[in-house]
């Protein structure tokens, strides 16, 4: 088991990207890890930390793209430069990047891990689905991205090309389920509520091979069977 590193990091900036916030913190002694790995961020005033995929890893920084959907993410997005933040990670299993014909697929805030992944893979093509133009501003973080907006789903442009690519996807559960049908063998980054992120709480149960497993230990990236 790799050592668990947790550090109090300094907030450098919180930038608006459409409806999302890009939270940039100083890296401290933490390492960015592999694309698809995640960190546990402790929002001020909340008991439990929140899992966030690494979005970007500029020199000396870690950056997270955050959708403010509840109390924890709201508190993270309300941080200001100069504030500090406790961060644990990197955690979990990221994407394998030894793939030959990568195609990134993202839906909504599922775009979060793709910028860092795209860099690792040499800027492969990407298909991104969003709810609106406003949300689609996040596509600017991903090179070579084709954007589709609802009511069109990202699975529509994916269907004809899926089997010609090694698909790496992140997005809402229904999207991942659809991608799994179209692209067996795809690497999918799942979500589950997590209290700890390092295997301690058994909270993040997902069904895998017919039984409940801890997503933070076995995933969050899993290969579609």
């Amino acid at each position, binding site marked *: 088991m790799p050592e*668990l590193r*947790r550090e109090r990091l300094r907030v450098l900036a919180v930038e608006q990207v459409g409806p999302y916030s890009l939270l940039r913190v100083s890296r401290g002694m933490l390492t960015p890890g592999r694309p698809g790995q995640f960190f546990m961020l*402790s929002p001020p005033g909340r008991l*439990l930390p929140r899992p966030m995929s690494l979005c970007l890893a500029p020199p000396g920084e870690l950056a997270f793209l955050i959708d403010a959907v509840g109390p924890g993410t709201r508190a993270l997005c309300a941080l200001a430069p100069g504030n500090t933040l406790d961060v*644990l990670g990197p955690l979990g299993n990221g994407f394998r990047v030894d793939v030959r014909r990568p195609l990134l697929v993202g839906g909504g805030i599922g775009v979060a891990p793709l910028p860092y992944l795209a860099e690792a893979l040499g800027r492969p093509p990407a298909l991104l689905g969003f709810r609106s133009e406003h949300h689609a501003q996040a596509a600017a973080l991903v090179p070579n991205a084709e954007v589709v907006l609802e009511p069109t789903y990202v699975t529509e442009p994916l269907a004809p090309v899926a089997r010609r690519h090694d698909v790496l996807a992140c997005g809402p559960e229904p999207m991942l389920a659809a991608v799994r049908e179209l692209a067996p063998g795809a690497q999918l980054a799942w979500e589950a509520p997590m*209290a700890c992120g390092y295997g301690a*709480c058994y909270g*993040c149960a997902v069904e895998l091979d017919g039984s409940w497993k801890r997503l933070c230990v076995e995933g969050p990236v899993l290969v579609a069977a």
Partner: protein
Amino acid sequence: MLLNASGCLDASTAPDVARSLDAFVTKTVTPLPREGNPPVRIAETEVGMVNSIGLANPGLEAFLADHVPRLAELGVPLWVSVGGFSADEYAASCAALDARAAVTTLELNLSCPNVDEAPESAAQIVAACRAATTKPLYAKLAATGDLAELARAVADAGADGLSLVNTLRGLTLDERSLRPPLARGVGGLSGPALKPVSLAAVWVCRRATALPIVGMGGVASGRDALELLAVGAHAVALGTVLFADPHAPARVRAELAAELSAHGFAAPADAVGAAHDRVLAASV
């Protein structure tokens, strides 16, 4: 003495954290493997969290075969938390664990709020286990009902110590949907909301019995640990705080040392029960 609370740390995913404790306590082991409850299993509340893990565990056989040998290598005393659905099940597990030298203490989980309870009373279960093992037996209780009476009953039945407290029944609602996030609706409440309750439980049991007590429930700082010692705990366990901070043991230890010296205690043992002594002194 600093432990983890059962179900709040997995030594295989965080061995360094387990080694930073004075004893490692396993998640509750039941005779048969359990998948646990369906998700969602955890949710934050305003001043704590609720969980309905439902005793997910590999079952006694796999635990004995695969886990005990690995846990033995940790190099810290090993407490095994034992669960079951009848006194016989508890006793059979204790008998099987009795043979394992690596296991130092058995903690009987008599109070999981997320599964059905055994039909027998806590004291009957303790008595059955007492007959099955010579290892130290700790009875883990929740803070409900007449705790003083319960503590005396399990002491009479042969318990060597108490672990106080397990979670309370709690519920929280999702901000927008107004639905309970937990699939089972109700779960076990842990974290800061529990601290006054665990202090009261330890206080009451300290007065009711002479058993050593592992205090837990909402401990997040050295001050919290000091308070549990002061009301009568001999050791303190960390639960929910480990989720936010795997390095909490080292921090709590350092903070506790500072608190002890600030309050004029040379050693943790000197603080044990101090809140009682002072009340008795004051009422003379």
